[in-house]
């Protein structure tokens, strides 16, 4: 197929894979400088916790459903936001079998064995589908955050992957693994003159053309299945192309500074303080509309270490009594604190029309692992008005095996994405939309 199309031709023509911003640059500028007040767009944020939670303490009691439920004690810091959030029980991925992967399939729902002849398969994650819908108008189509070392096997219980996100080919999307890297990507302005920036872009394109010259000659030598592997390389080049095309459109448009301004984070921030800074950066990025889709694969091991635990996250995840359980509950408490202060900031941040960022955010905190090796009843907490959900409730789905993808599908529908299903979804979760 590639023989008949040029690379740039494909870029121009393909709409499903690439979602290039399609707009006149003048109108676009107008939007970027926000001279007109448009209805605030939805923002999506996924927070992945890796290893599960303290089994009998994280969710409200199963029977205690509805809006007057007793808030879980170990999540106390979140209680003040109870009207803006919802716990959902009985969601799970039918195909997840690996009791050590909290994030690999969390946002995809894929069956790792789905493709004969392969021992690992994944599919596109919900945030990337959302980004195809929400990403055109912002400088960054989506932003992935993670933590140093949380790809290591065993480390934080996230499982294989580079961030929470997986692209259309089901390949891992890499993430920014330090606050300082995220800060520079999002907010550092390059004071290089415009012509020079244009020249740089041209150079970067020429680098891509050069490596493509080699890639094509390799392509001719390879078998069909090897070419499928080489496609990852082509896809990477295409992704950079798309990014460059976008950067070109944004040339001369300054990266907006958040207000209040945010300082360059220190290099040595690790653990719980690191999460706090990441939250600040996410709020700031949403505030200046640098991106509308964010994922954060949260650190675990370094977090509990920074809170004084003397054991590793993996040790903790095999909750026996005593220290391990104490550490586990402490981790849950701090995750709640983190989310609570994140929500505080979103509520404090006002949109042009007077509403708050929180009103337009669709937040999810959760993981594919419930506790120890359990993959059912995935811990799931959704918050914010971005997808039009009605909050303040504790929902327990009737079917114990309700696909988690039904939630992802509901969120996609809720933000207005034009999709008919997601993963193994069987429909939307109606309760979320009903008062």
């Amino acid at each position, binding site marked *: 197929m590639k023989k008949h199309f040029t690379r740039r031709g494909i870029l121009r023509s393909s709409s499903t894979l690439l979602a290039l911003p399609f707009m006149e640059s003048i109108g676009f500028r107008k939007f970027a400088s926000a001279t007109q007040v448009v209805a605030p767009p939805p923002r999506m944020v996924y927070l992945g916790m890796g290893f599960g939670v303290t089994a009998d303490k994280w969710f409200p009691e199963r029977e205690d459903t509805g809006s007057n439920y007793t808030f879980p004690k170990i999540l106390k810091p979140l209680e003040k936001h109870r009207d803006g959030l919802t716990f959902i029980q009985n969601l799970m991925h039918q195909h997840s*079998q690996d009791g050590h992967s909290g994030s690999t399939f969390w946002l995809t729902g894929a069956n790792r064995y789905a493709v004969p002849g392969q021992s690992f398969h994944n599919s596109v994650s919900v945030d990337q589908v959302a980004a195809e819908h929400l990403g055109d108008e912002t400088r960054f189509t989506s932003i992935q955050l993670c933590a140093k070392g949380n790809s290591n096997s065993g480390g934080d219980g996230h499982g294989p992957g580079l961030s929470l996100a997986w692209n259309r080919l089901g390949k891992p999307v890499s993430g920014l693994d330090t606050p300082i890297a995220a800060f520079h990507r999002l907010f550092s302005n390059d004071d290089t003159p415009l012509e020079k920036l244009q020249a740089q872009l041209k150079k970067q394109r020429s680098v891509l053309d050069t490596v493509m010259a080699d890639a094509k*000659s390799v392509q001719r030598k390879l078998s069909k*299945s090897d070419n499928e592997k080489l496609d990852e390389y082509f896809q990477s080049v295409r992704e950079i192309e798309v990014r460059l095309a976008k950067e070109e459109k944004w040339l001369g448009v300054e990266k907006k500074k958040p207000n209040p301004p945010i300082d360059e984070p220190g290099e040595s921030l690790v653990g719980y303080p690191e999460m706090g800074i990441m939250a600040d950066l996410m709020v700031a990025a949403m505030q200046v509309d640098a991106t509308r889709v964010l994922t954060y694969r949260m650190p675990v091991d370094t977090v509990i270490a920074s809170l004084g635990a003397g054991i590793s996250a993996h040790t903790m995840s095999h909750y026996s009594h005593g220290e391990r359980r104490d550490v586990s509950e402490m981790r849950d408490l701090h995750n709640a604190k983190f989310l609570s202060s994140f929500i505080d900031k979103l509520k404090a941040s006002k949109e042009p029309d007077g509403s708050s960022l929180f009103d337009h955010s669709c937040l999810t905190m959760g993981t594919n692992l419930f506790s120890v090796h359990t993959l059912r009843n995935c811990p799931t907490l959704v918050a914010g008005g971005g997808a039009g959900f009605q909050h303040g409730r504790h929902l327990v789905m009737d079917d114990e095996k309700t696909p988690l993808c039904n939630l992802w599908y509901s969120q996609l529908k809720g933000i207005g994405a034009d999709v008919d299903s997601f993963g193994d979804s069987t429909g939307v979760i109606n309760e979320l939309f009903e008062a």
Partner: protein
Amino acid sequence: MTLLRRYLYLTTVACFGTFAYAQNGAESINAIMPEKHFDILEKYCLDCHDAAIEKGEVNLEDLSFDLGTDLQTAETWQKVLNSLNTGEMPPEDKDQLTDEEKTVLLDDLSNHLVTARKILSDNGGEVTLRRLNRREYANTLEELIGVRPDITNLPDDQANAKFDTLGASLFFSSDQLEQYLNTARRTLELATLAQKTPEPGITRIEPEKEYNPHYLKVAGDLLDRAQRYYAWELAGGTDDVAKAHGFLDGWQAGRQLNSFHEYYPQVSKYLAAPENKTGAAFMLTIKEGFTQIKLPVLQWNQSGKYIIRVRASAYEDDPDRFRYLEFTRKVDQNAERLGWRKVSGSLRKPQVIEFEIDHPPGLKANYMVHKRTHEDRGDKNLWTEFRKENGYGTPWGIWVDWVEIEGPIAPGIEPGRYENVYFDKPADQSAPDYARDVIRRFAERAFRGETPSPEFLDHLYSRYDEAVAEGANLKQALIDPLSIILSSPSFLYMVESTGNEDSELLTGTELAVRLAFFLWSAPPDDELLSLGKSGKLSQPEMLTAQTQRLLSDPRSERFVESFVHQWLEMHRLGMFAFSGRQFPYFDNAVRDSARDEIFQMVRTLMDEKLPLRNLLKSDYLVINDVLADYYEIEGVTGHEFRKVPVPKGSPRGGLLGTVAFAAMGSDGQRSSPVERGAWVLRHLLNNPPPPAPPNVPQLSRLEGEVLGVRELQKAHQEEAQCAQCHRKIDPIGYGLENFDAAGLWRDMEIVKSGKKNKQQTSFEIDPSGKLSNGTTFDDYYQLRDRIADEVDNFAYGLTEALITYGLGRPFGFTDHTLAEEIVVKTKPGGYQFNEFIHALVQSKPFQTK
């Protein structure tokens, strides 16, 4: 029912497990459930899940008993397994399986499902296009340019699969492409930088100059606190008069007196010791400092080899483990341990110890000398324990007269490599022509014998021309095209096209590349590459000779370390923190040496052509001085690993007796018979248990009780879901219970519990048990013998691992023929390690795409 019977036309395989592969041959490998389970299905499931009712759209009547038929079948059986494991099926109001029925069914089903997954994911032996993994990338850049790149920003390829050589799991992302470009640029710049060798020199440090004034001041401060305290006490000792004596309140005054009692004895002892007038003892205090000698910072442009010399003495009354110097490199906040040297000189006759370091270009680092360390708070906690015992704290162990650093004594990068890139320009050649030569020659070398396409080269040339037009000098202008070469597919991937559409056979060059990356994790050298190109490498004798040459080259260390590390899952060694208080002997030196011990055991097998069985049981050890102290073995002097006989009565000898094995089979606190047992089944007996099933209810009956490990694990036998695997796993672990979490021998298990772990309960260790094949053992020694008897299975497992690692793809069912071939070939020679490698390299799969 007849419907179902139809699916049972294939012969049943009663004997399952990898044990069977070697005996039965590849053709009998399948995932067919034994017919006997049909009765269980009929009895408990078909009432609802037959073809007529299909409750929940699950029809077990028509379900094939061959789990490997297709994905759908495997998925349905997975559902059956999951719902039995969670106890969801049969429903509560229906007849339940007996424990025995459940155990047997789950055992067969979980194992067959593993087999089915393997069958279904088998890709027919094709090797997927392989990207250089992170290690290989770093090695390759170093060989090409002379400088080792900083790869911390590249993804760690080990996270995605069992081995980091599996092509299908080596992903590529757009950020990575940019990282490769940046890394290559930076490395090329550093290589140029490293060409300027700094002036050599010697700097000597007399530690007393720093430490005497420091400790004098500390002592003065402490005395002052005590004097003020007593004055305050005389003045009434109330909060009101505290301020007048320099205290916030009475509570703080008390604290200050405590610190006097805590530290003064040690500091005054230090200052009184005559040797500290002219040197410094390695004293450790909690608040007032840690005696360590900092050498002058080596800057990013001071690359080269240096020698650190230490004139030191040992305090002969202090235990051996305190008499080591630890050498550390600190970059930012990260400390990297470089090695240890034991001091044997006495105070009367100090000794000069030399330690060579390699300071890489581009790095700004502190080099330090101090005593051995524990993780985290270990050293501080131990100091407190020692102080309670001896009144002053951790024994000093070592006294240092002076430390000096000399260098650079040699350049930091291998000579010739840089010159290979930027070779001398012929006098009559124009700069652009020369640049084109540099680019083309570099691309040819970087592409390992593949010819770069003219179009690609043209692009590169014009990148050079543009840079020159913008005012860059020749070398600057070359950095860009050269780094693009190092980010192109021909460099980053091992392109195996076979050069011929009809043949699956690798070309000679491709074979050379595959061989070099297998045994060196690096590209072929000129000799290997030219033999490949000329086709001579494909002759069996030549291939043997070259394989042997590669194995004798120091670069083969990389094979030993990365293969063995991944094969034996040694990442577990770093997974858990050990508390210094609980395991005072298990410090960083022991942990690092423990890892090396395993590598050195394999290296020794290879170098001395010893039978593989020695890994299961041997009458020798391969250790250094650190481990000799740890294992309490006399007469081992020096930091090099060497072979020594196992003393009579010592439990060491073979993998099971190593500290690494014991520590990997623990959680940093207690030994884990499950981890140890499962590891033995996976790696020694080649009979891996299926993965821990998800969604099994947590066993909570014994929660909170203080019990011995054997008692604790009994709960595993109570639930049928657990018993099916744990009856195989746990007994092996019990047999190894005489090794504590840190690998030291014990006769009793001591469990600490209660507040601050102050309660101690002892449990008798009962190491006796039975293997799943029925053989019994009374103790560790017998267990080790029984396992050593299984060397055929061990050899088979090693073969599988080598095939996976060497071919860069998962071991498939089609590979059993190859594995048998290799095992049959190597058995007569007692399974020598090198023979496995030779047999694999000579095999057809190794030489075909």
